[in-house]
């Protein structure tokens, strides 16, 4: 098998070709050319106009949200942000191929999957401003979303931990006899963690209905994929663990949808894991704490901007007669206004009262935390001007 660096040539096929075994040079499913035309011989997935447009609008919304929130972080309105620019298709189109009952266990760059499930602009803002309306109670940094009603598990920062957890969650779904499975997102960097290897092996051995969805975006902060691993990417490892595997163009929404749809069908009907490796590129910085100019070139970024998944899908939608570019431009402007309006409104919402500092550590607040909370409240009352977020509501 040849050694593949992230940016080297990737062979293309235009059939859904799930590799069940064997050590081969793994090609990449592609349906749309970068200009949005359907490749010769490629089969479009069964995708209704409604679903196609929902995928597309989700991608556009996330692009708008990301741009606005990176700016908001620069203005000091939120403490941190992490954009998914260039990778919107991977999350949006894969989420579209799932059933709503399927659990999503994500890393932290899959906001498009959450938006596809129906997470609203207001909900995004509530989380990023850590306010009292946020169901995770403002306990984590911005972008660590979680929504039980949307079957979206609360995100944890440590990398790769969700991978074996997804295997366990899926096993539980299987044992309960549910027609549902779990999708687990992670990056190619996280796939170096021990938890990746533990998780894939256990999912295979214990026949868990789970899709491991790797967004291979070429970088783990500053570390390029060719310093992250040798061998044929992440997909080749699935084969090693005896897991059905497919590599897909991560900037081709149709290919991602087709691959995920097939993967889900296999996971649920055969009760087994499937690995998808989506080849994309992190056009964004790792986060607002990062500056990629220190480790990669503008030329490299330009190569990938030319493969933009949103423009690619837009051209396809236009060719189908499902999208009018002028109307779409107005729609995007309306999205921008909506994001800005919600941002301005939500940033005034207060954080949770101080009592929520000690709830949820256990199912009930134990004596020592009651005691610590009591002491803390007395202290805040003594120096209210030093604790302005909570002092006004301490009883």
């Amino acid at each position, binding site marked *: 098998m040849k050694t593949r660096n992230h940016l080297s040539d990737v062979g293309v096929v235009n059939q859904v070709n799930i590799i069940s075994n064997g050590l081969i040079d793994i090609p990449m499913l592609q349906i749309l050319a970068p200009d949005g035309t359907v490749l010769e011989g490629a089969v479009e997935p069964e995708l209704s106009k409604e679903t196609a447009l929902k995928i597309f609008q989700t991608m556009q919304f996330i692009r708008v949200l990301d741009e606005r929130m990176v700016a908001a972080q620069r203005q000091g309105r939120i403490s941190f942000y992490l954009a998914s620019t260039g990778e919107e298709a991977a999350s949006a189109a894969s989420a579209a191929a799932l059933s709503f009952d399927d659990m999503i266990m994500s890393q932290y760059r899959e906001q498009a999957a959450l938006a596809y499930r129906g997470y609203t602009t207001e909900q995004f803002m509530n989380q990023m401003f850590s306010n009292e309306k946020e169901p995770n109670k403002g306990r984590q940094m911005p972008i*660590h979303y979680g929504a039980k009603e949307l079957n979206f598990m609360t995100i944890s920062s440590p990398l790769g931990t969700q991978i074996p957890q997804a295997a366990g969650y899926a096993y539980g779904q299987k044992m309960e006899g549910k027609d549902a499975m779990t999708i687990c997102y992670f990056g190619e960097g996280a796939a170096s963690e021990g938890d990746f290897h533990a998780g894939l092996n256990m999912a295979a051995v214990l026949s868990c209905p789970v899709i491991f969805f790797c967004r291979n975006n070429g970088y783990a902060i500053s570390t390029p994929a060719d310093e992250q691993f040798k061998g044929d990417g992440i997909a080749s490892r699935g084969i090693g663990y005896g897991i059905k595997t497919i590599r897909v163009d991560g900037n081709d929404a149709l290919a991602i949808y087709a691959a995920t749809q097939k993967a889900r069908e296999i996971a649920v009907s055969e009760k087994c894991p499937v690995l998808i490796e989506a080849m994309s590129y992190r056009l964004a910085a790792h986060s607002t704490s990062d500056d990629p100019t220190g480790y990669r070139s503008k030329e490299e970024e330009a190569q990938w901007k030319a493969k933009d998944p949103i423009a690619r899908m837009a051209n396809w939608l236009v060719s189908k007669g499902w999208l009018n570019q002028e109307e779409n431009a107005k729609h995007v402007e309306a999205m921008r206004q909506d994001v800005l309006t919600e941002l301005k409104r939500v940033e005034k919402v207060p954080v949770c009262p101080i009592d929520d500092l000690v709830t949820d550590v256990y199912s009930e607040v134990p004596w020592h935390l009651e005691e*610590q909370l009591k002491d803390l409240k007395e202290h805040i009352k003594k120096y209210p001007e030093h604790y302005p*977020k909570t002092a006004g509501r301490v009883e």
Partner: protein
Amino acid sequence: MAQMNMLQAVNNALMTAMEENERVMVLGEDVGHFGGVFRATSNLQEKFGRERVFNTPLVEQGIIGFANGLASQGSVAVAEIQFGDYIFPAFDQIVNETAKWRYRSGGQFSVGSLTIRTPYGGGIAGGLYHSQSPEAYFAHTPGMKIVTPRNPYQAKGLLLASIRDDNPVLFMEPKRIYRASVGDVPEEDYELPLGKAEVVKEGSDITLLAWGAQMEVMEKAAAMAEKDGISCEIVDLRSILPWDAETVCASVEKTGRLIVSHEAPQTGGFAAEISAKVQERCFLYLESPIMRVCGLDTPFPLAHEKEYMPDELKVYEAIKRSMNF
């Protein structure tokens, strides 16, 4: 002498160690050309090459396992864990391997030339997973040394001593003051002693003991108390393991009172160990109970970070309670 912030002092110590000993190697996530997410390893790869300063795959257990092997071979490994919060995948390698290597082999083998650098601590809006102070987990592990500096001068001298010490050292860097703490640092090679606390300000009424970024908080609290006429002696523990009970107890015998403060949760925190030892040794000298000003026994919060932190107001209140006991 040059003015440096703590990151520059750490970088300068690594440069010094690598120039002096060609067997010193630096490894970790993003430490190569990029110079680490905090830039503590800036320019090291340019100066010493990719074979001595290298990025690793994103796997903490691998980094420490690899560094253990490297150190056992006789090389000098300086491994970076990007955030203290992410050290736990390497817990097995550190607790069961690093710390026990010498003991289990009857002294034939050791990883004494290993130093693990990691940023720790809160106050940066980092929430659960970019704020923790995990020293107590490792302080329960015989075979490790644990060191933390309070300013750039201490950082360079203690890091050089840690790299050259014949025992594995966990070197915890207080990231809140990485750039905020600026001071004079000699350009030349120097070491500061491991296992030795330092009295940074003498006083007669009460001893305030802390380490790392918490030293700044103690100094602010002491300044508040001085206005009330309370004379505070401030001690920087510097080494958490083994810790300098002699210096701490000498201070407590002088002042009769002790407050220990850390950001980590109170229960099972290192202040508990210090309190136990000091009351064993200094029982008849104590004028009031030893007090702890620590983080709450919760995961590290985000929205309530300010309320959670053991700030100078909480320490000041504890000083008054101790004085008025």
